């Protein structure tokens, strides 16, 4: 009796089917990792809130008008110069030095600024206030925010390099990979405390 061989199944079109599925998933896939400038909003102040009195010299005013032009400390400025101006302000360190709650509010021993009497006392007192118009383009607003953050990053990197021989960016990355490392945590916190990011958004001026 002749044995009949089972015929082989033709798998030639298998690849086509798989390709079809593959292309479908390729098209529908979104692999974007969402990233952006993160900010913490201030809490809603209570009704009877009295804003603290802040010395004029400790405020760095940035105004953006509806034509996307910058006015920094009452002078027109190009966005390219904003970072350096901010660094100069934050790092001024013009205070005399007194201790309040174990935080030195005056003398800043790591600042390298001009110690000018018309600019900020200490990085933890230096407030950057951004005021924009309602009609300002969002793109410009983000550029300004980014430049200000760059100023902080540069200062933090510098301090970290001096203290720990490693830039702050690297330090933060190391800490992210190793969250339980107390030593790294302490270092990151110390740098953050030395140059806290204080950027406030004031209510925009009306376009009309």
């Amino acid at each position, binding site marked *: 009796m002749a044995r009949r061989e089972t015929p082989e199944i033709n*798998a030639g079109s*298998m*690849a086509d089917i*798989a*390709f079809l*599925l*593959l292309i479908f*998933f*390729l098209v*529908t*896939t*979104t*692999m974007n*990792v*969402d*990233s*952006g*400038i*993160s*900010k*913490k*909003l*201030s*809490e*809603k102040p209570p009704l009877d809130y009295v804003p603290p009195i802040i010395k004029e010299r400790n405020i760095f005013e940035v105004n*953006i008008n509806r034509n996307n032009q910058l006015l920094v400390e009452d002078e027109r400025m190009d*966005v*390219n110069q904003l970072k350096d101006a901010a660094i100069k302000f934050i790092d001024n360190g013009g205070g005399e030095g007194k201790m309040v709650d174990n935080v030195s509010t005056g003398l800043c021993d790591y600042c390298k600024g001009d110690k000018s009497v018309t600019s900020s006392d200490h990085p933890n007192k230096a407030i950057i206030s951004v005021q*924009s*118009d*309602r*009609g*300002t*383009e*969002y*793109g410009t*607003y*983000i*550029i300004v*925010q*980014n*430049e200000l*953050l*760059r100023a902080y*990053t540069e200062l933090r990197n510098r301090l970290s390099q001096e203290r720990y021989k490693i830039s702050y960016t690297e330090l933060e990355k190391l800490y992210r990979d190793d969250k339980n490392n107390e030593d790294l945590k302490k270092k990151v916190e110390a740098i953050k405390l030395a140059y806290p990011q204080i950027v406030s*958004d004031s*209510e*925009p001026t009306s*376009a009309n």
Partner: protein
Amino acid sequence: MSKFKKKKKGMPAVNTASLPDIVFMLLFFFMVTTTMRETSLQIDTPSLPSATEVKKLEHKSLVSTIYVGKAKDSKYGVGYNKIQLNDKIASSDQVPAFIINARTKVSEAEIPFMTTSIKADKKSSVGTITDIRLKLRDVNALKVSYSTNTGSDIR
């Protein structure tokens, strides 16, 4: 003479039996990494501004996204200041409801870690963003991320 005639030999066929395996492997990779878009955009895909000091958003389930940009449908009018919440074009007054609704989907302990990602077009105006920000502050959704591309916009 014909003894020396070269035998005509066809090119040997390349063995493609493993091709499906390779393709399947790729297929599985994409299947696993795919996240389907949850909402369909009612506005033109915003051209995000660029920034260098960006932070990556972790925990996608804790992120609620607000889009701002130009509406695709011209019945909503032109201009880059239309807000999209979920699947609809909305006004900034509906932002608190949107956030509270998003909160019901996560456990109570995780609420403080929720982030609102604002994906706004470069040409949107700050006024719209401020309106959203004030509404977010009303419901205590204080963590905000302004979504950007990585790079520099400064010429």
